[in-house]
């Protein structure tokens, strides 16, 4: 399937729209269905689609492994960091009301940051699992 003209054209056409849709789902999670988990999975699906059409080495060049590792860790760091920030501002852990001048605004900001962290971690983990699985070659003893 690699390098087929029709698939390459359609992939080039569709992958940007899938990524934009993932961003829409991430940031529109406040007003409609969506949120961090869904957006993370959609971004991972777009990059896996790229890997299926263009080959895994090409995708490793576009999204290198160290980027995925950083994504994996920084998502949960953002989440816990919001909690620590609220503690430094004087309230309990993960009490978003103190993040802004008004409790409702603070909650909104806290939810935004927390969902961002969730989305980044989910993307990183899905991509890392795919890279680990798809990068293995067939070892001789499994051919029966």
């Amino acid at each position, binding site marked *: 399937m690699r390098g087929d003209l029709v698939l390459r054209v359609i992939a080039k056409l569709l992958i940007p729209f899938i990524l934009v849709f993932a961003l829409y789902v991430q940031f529109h999670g406040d*007003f409609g269905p969506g949120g961090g*988990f869904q957006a993370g999975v959609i971004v991972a699906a777009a990059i*896996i689609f790229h890997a299926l059409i263009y080959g895994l080495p090409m995708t490793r060049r576009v999204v290198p492994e160290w980027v995925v590792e950083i994504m994996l*860790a920084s998502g949960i760091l953002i989440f816990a960091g919001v909690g620590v920030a609220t503690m430094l501002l004087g309230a309990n852990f993960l009490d978003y009301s103190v993040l802004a001048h008004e409790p409702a605004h603070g909650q909104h900001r806290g*939810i935004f940051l927390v*969902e961002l962290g969730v989305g980044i*971690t*989910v993307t*990183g983990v899905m991509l890392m699992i795919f890279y680990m699985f798809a990068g293995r070659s067939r070892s001789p003893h499994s051919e029966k």
Partner: protein
Amino acid sequence: MSTTLINTALLLMMAVAAVAIARTRNLFSVVILGSLYSFLMATILLVLDAVDVSMTEAAVGAGISTVLLLATLYLTQSEEAKPHHNPLIPLAVALVTVGLLAYGTLGLPEFGSPDSVIHKHVAPRYLKEGPTETGVPNIVTAVLASYRGFDTLGEVGVIFTAGIGVIVLLRRRWRSDVDEKDT
């Protein structure tokens, strides 16, 4: 009435897909049937008005899981090995457990009834004051990220641990992979 009909039809299709997964030998067909099962599950979740979960289930189950299973299938043989023993006793144990669980669900309150106990404690407060307190109209996101933020932190921690586990278990340097095969 029409909702019951749709639900029954979808659940029947899911049961048929599950039986087909259990009975098929060819693992490639099993993977595709698994993807079909996930897609039917996403549709049932949509009919039950759980749109967020349905979106996640469709993307993970019918999309990424299938690709991962196919990548795994590439590494091993694609025909299931014959079972060594007669599966009658495990089947009997499974049927007895299913019977006990089904008998247990008779004691639960009716499906979706607003008088059940879980809808009386904090849920009315979340529904009434969620949009004003958090400034976010979507109740699911408000409960997930604000009211039950600790649970979401734990969830992200679990996902992170899964990623770390996969890295620790499966990562190899490419050169040492070749060296191992030579020795």
